[in-house]
């Protein structure tokens, strides 16, 4: 259930039936993780990559295109 509705909302969902979390940046990128520490580190750093990617002429990653963003977290 989503509650916050602003344009810059990070979301972390506990995947049903598992011990895993999936985090969503407000740009649409997402990443799965076994723990919240790693996930928040990636999520909160991730918007910093938006600008650099734009300046390089590269669009923000679509959900699922996570390897580049993850390596920057």
């Amino acid at each position: 259930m989503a509650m916050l509705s602003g344009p810059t909302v990070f979301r972390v969902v506990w995947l049903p039936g598992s011990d895993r979390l999936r985090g969503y940046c407000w740009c649409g990128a997402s990443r799965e993780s076994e723990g919240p520490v790693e996930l928040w580190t990636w999520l909160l750093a991730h918007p910093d990559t938006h600008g650099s990617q734009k300046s390089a002429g590269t669009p923000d990653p679509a959900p699922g295109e996570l390897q580049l963003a993850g390596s920057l977290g």
Partner: protein
Amino acid sequence: MSFVRNQWYVAAYGTEVGRELFSRTVCGESILFWRTEAGEITAMADRCVHRRFPLSEKPSNLVGDTVVCGYHGFTYGADGGCVAVPGQTRIPRTARLATFPVRERDSFVWVWIGDKERADESLIPRAPWLDSPDYTTVCGMEPLKARFMLLVDNLLDLSHETYLHGGYIGTPEVAHTPITTEVDDETGVVYVSRHMDDAECPSFYAKSTGIEGRIVRWQDIEYFPPCLYLLHSRVAPVGVYPKDDGTDTDAFHVEVVYAITPETENTTHDFWAVARDFALDDQGVSDFLHDNNRTVVLQDVVALDKLEQVIATEPDGYQELSINIDTGGLAARRILKRMAEEGAPREQVAR
């Protein structure tokens, strides 16, 4: 962590402040509160500029709209300015108490800690249930001998209800139900949701609502860092959900509100309130919810006071272990760290 400055904090309930001098320490600042004869609330330093006697201490007293220091008679107006000193007519130019921006909202007295020119009352987060005629509220405040962050951690992870508050508000389902967490990067609001569709009804809700049997229990937390915490609690018999048009008249709603206010680096004011939309005129329900919630808060107080002793007396650098249930608490910590950096005096930021 040092105090998060340039923020609004709850200093008191409006009912605590009247025509008696009242003092409370917020973020290390001893603040004197009183009302003028017109009912306006004032907030100023609780120290006479002369020899630092606390103005809240007798025989200091209010005379009309002035405070007279009980030590040597320095007298201050509602704006903090000194209007009389003993034995001479000249009042030193520096004889003025520091004042704090103060507002009353939703039964709370909010005070701004930080640069006065940055005090924007539109930033005060709201808890409108507390003085709404559609709700009945019970409330209190418990002093905590533990740092602010420990209470934030406690409230952002309600899985502890199952263990620390078993028999009151805790049931096995709370700890066993996954959460969804959201953070608004712009406003700093942290949201944690735990929806239980088939849960045991704890005595707190069974006795107050009269529900027999298992329940749908929703816990939706909105935390407005640093001070205001809202827990929107929805309880209904199993299978009862809000209607398609958004109305939810067959459920019981309890708005649990906490104001988390640092007193010192290692002590905290734990304001709590429980507002309900049922049994509005039933004093028995009010008494039950008050006593039960206070008991629950005091269980937290005992645990957190103990935890503070452990943290304060053991070496720094302990590597905590965080798991999925900590997702909301970790988000709050990061938001608060960012707020502390943004609100710090410029010379601290420059270091």
